[in-house]
């Protein structure tokens, strides 16, 4: 079993999904517990894989390889490097919490859990794949179930068209869950199309007859090709990472999705995008990256500021969190663009930190919405008096979001800004810090408006605090935020050797920057 641990982690959710498929639709608790078991196996496997990773030896470990299409050199090859462990852990935690958060789902549970579990298998698969084509396969698996998950179990709500182009938006059903699902799927698949073109080019030009990431990284591509291909990978994967201006699917999608799906999508899936840009785009195409990195950094800075400003003007709670995700993913991309070890450490740490934080946010928003049946902030107020636990956790998430020392958010943002300062592009640190400042404004405003202040109006007197399984999700995620904030070495010992290894392609450049 130990030799096939990574396969187990990837396959466990799908196996659970197969079992769930065969259960009768009425067996509600059996469906839930099977799903939870699948998630738990993956989580446990991730913990073991993380713990047993040899940080000193670093490099690729736990290599597993099975031929898939021998004539093309496609292999299902799994392995973990320094980055993989923390990201596996993040995915395991989020899906476990996500299943707990969906415990009370009432409609068509069986199909819901099947899709959710298949999706998570895709996410795990992306993180451990060492074969570019299989990487892409899992990437698609992670993206597609979202269409049904949002379209069937999502929530529609009216969004009044606004802005200079409102006459255009009137024609579309903005706020409608089916609109959101279609928009998300099509945008992400256009991104996939760009990625696929780049993969073809890499495969054909490498001449290696193999999609192995190691082989592809060792191949020498001429500079011109790299400059052409990098934007395809950057914007293709970047669409999922919410890179401006291809982020527009994210607020609609996250706002319409059911709680666990928002948690998973904002918490883990957007990281797949950033992971793809770094692991595939930057590592394979150093010259292309060097050419485009000013643009990557500038767009990331726009992301940070634009997302924050957009979040500030929202009145719908879920849209605030969604735009804050766009802003925080900008921090990840900013860290990636620094091409320094500390910047990349910060970027990967931010993936984990933001994943857990936004997972907590969406879980809380789901709880509030389920009880108050509104997400409109002006209608809420003083909820802390009736749901003190939820209020406490929400405040914790907010503090991490604005980067308070002692929470995970601080560690990553600090490292990214330090990396920006150390790289050739000192200017990038300024919008970054400014973004953190604006974040403080909007999250504190929202917290005060919802939870603190004078007690809830009459209609909300009956609201209750979190219960049983819901506490499970909140406590797991909240604890992680604090632990990572206080003891970042736990992850950084893994991430750092990974960053060093992946940056080795940039060696002359990286040293020069320092």
């Amino acid at each position, binding site marked *: 079993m130990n030799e096939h641990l990574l396969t187990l982690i990837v396959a466990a959710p799908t196996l659970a999904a197969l079992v769930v498929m065969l259960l009768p639709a009425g067996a509600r608790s059996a469906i839930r517990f099977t799903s939870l078991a699948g998630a738990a196996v993956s989580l446990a496997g991730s913990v073991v894989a993380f713990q047993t990773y040899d940080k000193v030896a670093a490099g690729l470990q736990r290599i597993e390889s099975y031929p898939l299409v021998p004539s093309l050199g496609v292999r299902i090859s799994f392995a973990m490097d320094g980055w993989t462990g923390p990201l596996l852990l993040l995915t395991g935690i989020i899906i476990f919490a996500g299943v707990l958060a969906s415990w009370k789902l009432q409609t068509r549970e069986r199909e819901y859990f099947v899709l959710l579990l298949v999706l998570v298998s895709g996410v795990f698969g992306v993180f451990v794949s060492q074969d570019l084509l299989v990487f892409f396969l899992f990437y*698609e698996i992670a993206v597609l179930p979202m269409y049904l998950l949002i379209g069937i179990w999502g929530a529609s709500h009216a969004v009044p068209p606004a802005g200079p182009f409102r006459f255009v938006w009137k024609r579309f059903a903005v706020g409608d869950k089916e609109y959101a699902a279609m928009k998300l799927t099509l945008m992400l698949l256009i991104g996939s199309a760009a990625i696929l073109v780049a993969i073809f080019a890499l495969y054909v030009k490498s001449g290696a007859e193999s999609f192995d990431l190691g082989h592809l990284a060792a191949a020498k591509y001429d500079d011109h090709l790299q400059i052409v291909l990098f934007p395809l990978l950057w914007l293709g994967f970047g669409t999922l990472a919410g890179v401006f201006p291809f982020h527009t699917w994210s607020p609609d999608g996250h706002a319409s999705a059911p709680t666990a799906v928002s948690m998973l999508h904002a918490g883990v899936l957007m990281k797949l995008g950033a992971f793809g840009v770094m692991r595939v785009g930057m590592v394979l195409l150093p010259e292309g990256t060097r050419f485009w990195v000013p643009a990557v950094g500038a767009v990331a800075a726009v992301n940070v500021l634009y997302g924050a400003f957009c979040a500030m003007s929202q009145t719908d709670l879920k849209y605030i969190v969604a735009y804050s995700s766009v802003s925080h993913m900008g921090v990840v991309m900013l860290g990636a663009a620094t091409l320094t070890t500390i910047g990349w450490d910060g970027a990967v740490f931010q993936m984990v930190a933001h994943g857990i934080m936004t997972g907590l946010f969406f879980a809380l928003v789901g709880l509030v919405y389920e009880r108050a049946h509104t997400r409109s902030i002006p209608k809420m107020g003083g909820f802390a008096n009736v749901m003190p636990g939820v209020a406490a956790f929400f405040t914790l998430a907010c503090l991490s979001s604005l980067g308070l020392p002692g929470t995970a958010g601080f560690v990553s943002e600090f490292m990214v800004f330090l990396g920006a300062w150390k790289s050739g592009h000192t200017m990038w640190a300024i919008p970054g810090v400014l973004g953190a400042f604006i974040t403080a404004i909007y999250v504190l405003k929202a917290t005060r408006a919802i939870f603190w202040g004078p007690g809830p109006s009459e209609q909300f007197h009956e609201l209750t605090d979190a219960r049983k399984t819901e506490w499970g999700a909140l406590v797991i995620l909240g604890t992680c935020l604090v632990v990572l904030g206080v003891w970042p070495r736990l992850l950084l010992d893994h991430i750092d050797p990974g960053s060093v290894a992946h940056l080795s392609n940039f060696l002359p450049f990286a040293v020069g920057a320092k």
Partner: protein
Amino acid sequence: MNDLRVLWLPLATATLAVVVLLLDVLSPPAHASRDRRRPVIGWVVVAGLVAIFAATFFIDSSGTAAFGAFRGGPWSTFLGRLFLAAGILGALGALDDVAERMPRRQGAYWLSFVVSLVGMTILPGARDLILVVVAFELVGVPLYVLAAYAKTDPPPDAPSSKGLASEAALKLYLVGATSSAITLFGLALLTGMAGTCRIDALAASPMTPLGAVGLLFVLAGVGYKIGMVPFHHWVPDTYQGASTPFVAFLSVAPKAAGMALLAVLFTFGLGSARATWMPPIALFAVLSMAVGNLLALPQTDLRRVLGYSGIAQMGYVLLALIAADAFGLGMTLFFLAGYVVTNMGAFLVVHTTARAGGGFGFEGLAGLSKRSPWLAASFLCFLLSLAGIPFVVGFWAKLYVFLAAWRAGLLGLVGVGIVLAVVGLFYYLRMLRAAYMTDAGELAPPKPALALRLAIILCLAGAVGIGLWPGPLVDDAMRAGHDLLDGRPMAATQQHDGKTELARR
């Protein structure tokens, strides 16, 4: 004796046709009081095709027969299996429909069906233009009959579509007959250019302007058969009018046959004239992808959506075909194999839901995921496969086709193809939306009969099975592609053959 071994596949299929004919003639006429006869002949056809299909794995047919007019080997065996698989699925799908709607005319239906299959099994191995024409007509003529088969009785699920079958058949017939004539004329010109009917001798003679015209004529004629833009107009109308299980067969097998013919004639026979036929096929491929994908968007009838989607899919196959190397040919075959299971599956699901009383509009799919989760899940797999999404066969098919075209240096075409594939996703998702996100209303859960259910399960198994483990089939397809091109005579022998033919003349 050797000829028998090489030609065993068409011969075995023809034997099955004779058996069907005898059964039909010798079986007692339907009793007046018993309106509905059991689909005995249908099951015989299925059993026979399965037996032949199984036998292809044990009988080695490589070699040439009939004085070199027919060449067996991995190429013709692969395509033969593909046609037989389509035949088995088509027969299973149509079994109950035929027994129910034309109980007295079952024998003739199955006879036409098997005869068309005989033509298909000959076509890929034919190396003589005369044999090509015969096989091509043998494929086509029974299909006109089959398309018109439901002419008198409107389907129970859509009484309003009475008379559409006649229109469908007439369209198919007129277009098919015209295309046959055009193909024949083109072949005549090519023969005139080369001075021989032998396909392997075509390459020996230099391309003349008249030869180029003949080549275009052949392309146009076969283009009609495979529904390539701008020769596609009959496709949606015929799909809408003919009985759906037959359309499931019509939408894959004859198209694969047409593709096989294009491959044999152009990449094998006229490989040296690639510069002449590549630009028009590339143009038609792009047009097919564009027109198919864009015109599928506004359709309201599922059969028409699938019809236009089929036009677009042919555009993708052509991409691999014009790569004109062994890899491209192999990937053409792989794509067609995947297309057989997914497109037939999709049509059969539509047929099933329509029979449950929903009709052929999008509303017919309403709430399918609640009425029949398994049928909805199969439909999901078929649509994802057609859209080219991973872990179903369609993804690999599209991937390989694009890869083949890329390796042949057709970067622009690949770019256009990928963008249009994303456009295509929209209408596949629309169908999914209808199946998964709408309320069932009054519709009853569909209850497909055993044979139909079996056909859908086989399609599903194929789509998912190949999708999860494409390796063996890819290798097989590559072997077939190599086989066709390796059979290409060396330049010297070509010259020699050409001269002897000329001298003989």
